[in-house]
């Protein structure tokens, strides 16, 4: 069976990571989380790779985490350790590449949280964004409760997180949850242009994420520990 996350690197040094489980609206399961972890590691290890594009196959980016696997960890401690051992969210936040999310259709739950860790969020006018976790009595747990209030006005984040209701692409743009919105037919050209800009000036593309992280992009190795 084909893997539900695909990874390809082109001659420009652009890695395309595709969520490829359209029959389940690209719901992110444990296998996909592990593949994301591996591919993000690979992208960081290949010096030629300078930009990562996240996209979803089929009618949406991702409808969220695969709930059918919830509660399958042997214990809460095991679930917590697994998360810290393969912390793709921290890996994303500290990644050396420019990261771009191409958002269309449903971007719900983890399907919104993953883009929140990216440098640039480009959305189709048909995108719908939500953190619907409270509808099932859990909370966003792939960084949404912390990243959204740091990206959008905190009151907007509180509204989305507490109600679980979706917002349209135009609302997301007004509140800075996405950086730009395009007619569906124009999204790919806009993503391509953003990739070219990122390749030309990666430091500028990463500046906002590094500010959020509280780090400076000096291109110098960190000082050795004392």
């Amino acid at each position, binding site marked *: 069976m084909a893997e539900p996350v695909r990874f390809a690197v082109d001659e420009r040094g652009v890695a395309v990571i595709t969520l490829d489980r359209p029959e389940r609206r690209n719901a992110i399961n444990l296998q996909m989380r592990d593949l994301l972890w591996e591919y993000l590691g690979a992208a960081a290890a290949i010096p030629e790779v300078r930009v990562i594009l996240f996209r979803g196959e089929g009618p949406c980016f991702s409808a969220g985490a695969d709930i059918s696997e919830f509660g399958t960890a042997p214990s809460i401690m095991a679930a917590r350790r697994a998360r810290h051992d393969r912390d793709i969210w921290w890996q994303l936040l500290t990644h050396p590449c420019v990261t771009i999310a191409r958002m269309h259709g449903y971007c719900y739950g983890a399907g919104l949280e993953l883009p929140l860790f990216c440098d640039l969020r480009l959305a189709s006018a048909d995108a719908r964004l939500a953190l619907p976790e409270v509808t*099932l009595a*859990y*909370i966003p747990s792939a960084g949404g409760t912390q990243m959204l209030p*740091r990206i959008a*006005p905190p009151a907007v984040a*509180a509204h989305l997180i507490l109600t679980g209701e979706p917002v349209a692409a135009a609302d997301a743009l*007004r509140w800075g949850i996405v950086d730009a919105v395009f007619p569906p037919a124009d999204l790919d050209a806009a993503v391509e242009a953003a990739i070219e800009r990122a390749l030309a000036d990666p430091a500028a593309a990463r500046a906002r994420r590094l500010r959020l992280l*509280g780090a400076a992009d000096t291109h110098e190795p960190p000082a050795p520990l004392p």
Partner: protein
Amino acid sequence: MSAFADLLPPPPGADAAWLDDALEALSDGARGILIAADRFADAPRPPDGALRRLVLGRLPVIAWFEGELAGAALDLALAADIRAAGEAAALRGPAGWPARAALLAPALAPRLAAGERLGAAALFAAGLVTALAAPGGAEAEARRLAGVLRSRGPIALELAKEAVWRGLPQPIEQALRFETDLTMLLQTTKDRAEGVRAFLEKRTPSFTGE
């Protein structure tokens, strides 16, 4: 399932402790607090600590307004998690609580501090108001939102609210671990198990707050 409690304006001549008293008097079963902020124009300003109880307490708080809020009414509205406003509504600074204004809307805070009047459209654009209704429609929208929150898991709402307002002052690395730990704590609750079960069985979940 219990409803949202309406916060009642203090009687004339009440002292500044009125908000603490009102919060103490809330029924144990209240699922949230609704504030008709227009009605608090004459209320004495509560101390910061009482306003902070609204922000950091367990219950979600929704404020709505149609007119111009200033003084204590403005500070009460700022303490809410969610603000709904009619299109003719406005806020007039300065807020008695500049740090909250700066946290919620950094771009507008200096203008509020300068005593400017900010109309509903500007408040909505800045995300300080997140539900904008036709004039006269703010209360209906606030009550609709209260109904939405009432259908959600109460413990999840409590932890979601804590995650946002207690997480925001933390460095991001700590904040992300804080979120994970709240998530893990939530996994010990019956509501969380019920939510997953209901999803898989394609039915509406029935939360008990346990």
